[in-house]
């Protein structure tokens, strides 16, 4: 591996890890707060799957980087600008409809992404993906079911679901974004060609929106920047809470 390739691969594993980590953290905030006990269990389940992936991706990123950073160093000792997650996953939970909208858009993309990543020439990435694709299929079933249930439920739930969708929609775009590093990895057979997933993902989304009697939001504002560390004001508060112990008691074993 050339040094440039190593750097690209490090960044790639890191951003996959960051997406899982931050979304897992957001879902963890729902603990004991959801509308039904069964939903607490389901949301924690998705959160667990995402943290599981985060650990593998971050551990791998640390190994590729070769500077001795483990999963915890990467999760707990970077500041906002060092995180490369997509903006979607750091958006606040809002109400349950908002969380479902965020999760549905993520899952709809993620199922396709993980399926493609199983064909990566990188054995570690392919192995994580093989496990993740099954999990994500289940996550999508859950979030899609609720999208439909809320969209086609009561007038209030319909309005909330539409509002949640409008709120999260602009952030879908960034999931398809690829920088030069990713494009080099696509060429090398390591990374997924995100753009190639677009038609399939959008079809899956449209079909669910129709069933949910929801209106597809108009494409307009399409923020990017998460991959290069340009984040919303929300991420800092998430990190302050998430990293508190590691920061307050540096160098401790837990």
């Amino acid at each position: 591996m050339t040094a440039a390739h190593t750097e690209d691969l490090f960044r790639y594993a890191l951003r996959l890890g960051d997406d899982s980590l931050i979304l897992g953290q957001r879902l963890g905030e729902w603990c004991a707060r959801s509308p039904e006990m069964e939903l607490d269990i389901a949301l924690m389940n998705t959160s667990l799957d995402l943290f599981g992936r985060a650990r593998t991706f971050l551990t791998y990123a640390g190994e590729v980087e070769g500077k001795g950073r483990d999963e915890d160093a990467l999760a707990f000792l970077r500041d906002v600008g060092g995180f490369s997650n997509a903006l979607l996953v750091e958006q606040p939970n809002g109400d349950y409809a908002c969380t479902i909208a965020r999760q549905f858009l993520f899952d709809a993309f993620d199922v396709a992404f993980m399926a493609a990543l199983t064909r990566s020439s990188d054995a570690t990435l392919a192995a994580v993906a093989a496990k993740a694709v099954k999990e994500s299929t289940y996550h999508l079933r859950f979030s899609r079911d609720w999208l439909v249930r809320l969209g086609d439920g009561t007038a209030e739930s319909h309005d909330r679901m539409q509002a949640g969708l409008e709120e999260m929609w602009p952030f879908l775009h960034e999931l398809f974004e690829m920088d030069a590093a990713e494009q080099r990895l696509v060429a090398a057979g390591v990374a997924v060609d995100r753009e190639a997933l677009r038609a399939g993902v959008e079809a899956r989304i449209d079909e669910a929106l129709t069933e949910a009697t929801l209106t597809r939001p108009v494409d307009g504002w399409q923020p990017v920047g998460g991959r290069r560390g340009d984040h919303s004001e929300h991420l800092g508060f998430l990190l302050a809470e998430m990293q508190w112990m590691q920061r307050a008691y540096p160098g401790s074993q837990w």
Partner: protein
Amino acid sequence: MSQTVADTAETPVSLDRRFQDWIDAERKIEPRDWMPEAYRRTLIRQISQHAHSEIIGMQPEGNWITRAPSLRRKVALIAKVQDEAGHGLYLYSAAETLGASRDDMVADLLSGKAKYSSIFNYPTPSWADIGAIGWLVDGAAICNQVPLCRTSYGPYARAMVRVCKEESFHQRQGYEIMMALAQGTPEQKQMAQEALNRWWIPSLLMFGPPDDQSPNSAQSMKWKIKRHSNDDLRQRFVDMTVPQAEFLGLTLPDPDLKWNEERGHYDFGALPWDEFQAVLKGHGPCNRQRMAFRNKTFADGAWVREAASAYAEKQKARQAAAVKAA
């Protein structure tokens, strides 16, 4: 026991006697069996309280999910809290086999009519409290619950088998958290000691009032809903825990704690039963917070539950229409 012991045509007295004989023979009562109303009521109260405790217990531990100090600990904690939600669900189901409805039980929890374990009215201001809860609170729960795996009511006994298995795992995890702290930096060790100081007495109070002040125990023992007295279980817990604390190098906050060679047990100091009563009456550090949180969560989620019902109704109507059309 199906039709074996009880036929509703029998006289109440003979029913009661045959029911007790069946229990004395260590056989299980199943949902469709005849049972005395008091047995049914006692079990519903006990099982639903246990379910409520699992649900409320998610709060003090859930409090640290977003701040757990490593990813490994975070994942373990989420899984643990998830298990608690699961326990709550099995237990509500077990109570439903006795004719209670989950909605009613939840309503009683929310209104304050039903109780949950007072232990969850203590706060978790530090990460070490998560270790202490796993080690001590789950430890005490296991002492209480292992005998319940042989309780006379079948569905409850079977639920407890699963619950106890998972709680043993949680207890080991909690002890492991304490171990990491006790072997860590001086600050970590202090954190562990302070958590132990907070949780030791409340854990002992979990076993309930002393035997001579526990009026319902005799009947429950007779029905084999309960199999050991509060004081016996408390003693068992103390005897089990003292060497564990010693191994951690932590000090149990009780100057009167010492081995009694004659009894073959540890003696321990008098317990603050006034505190126990105060917490039971709602004056623990977190009673109001726990109830307010649960009520707010329930109220905030109303529109979601309504949407789910409305959707289910629509689906049913659509299916009916489709059947009709076909």
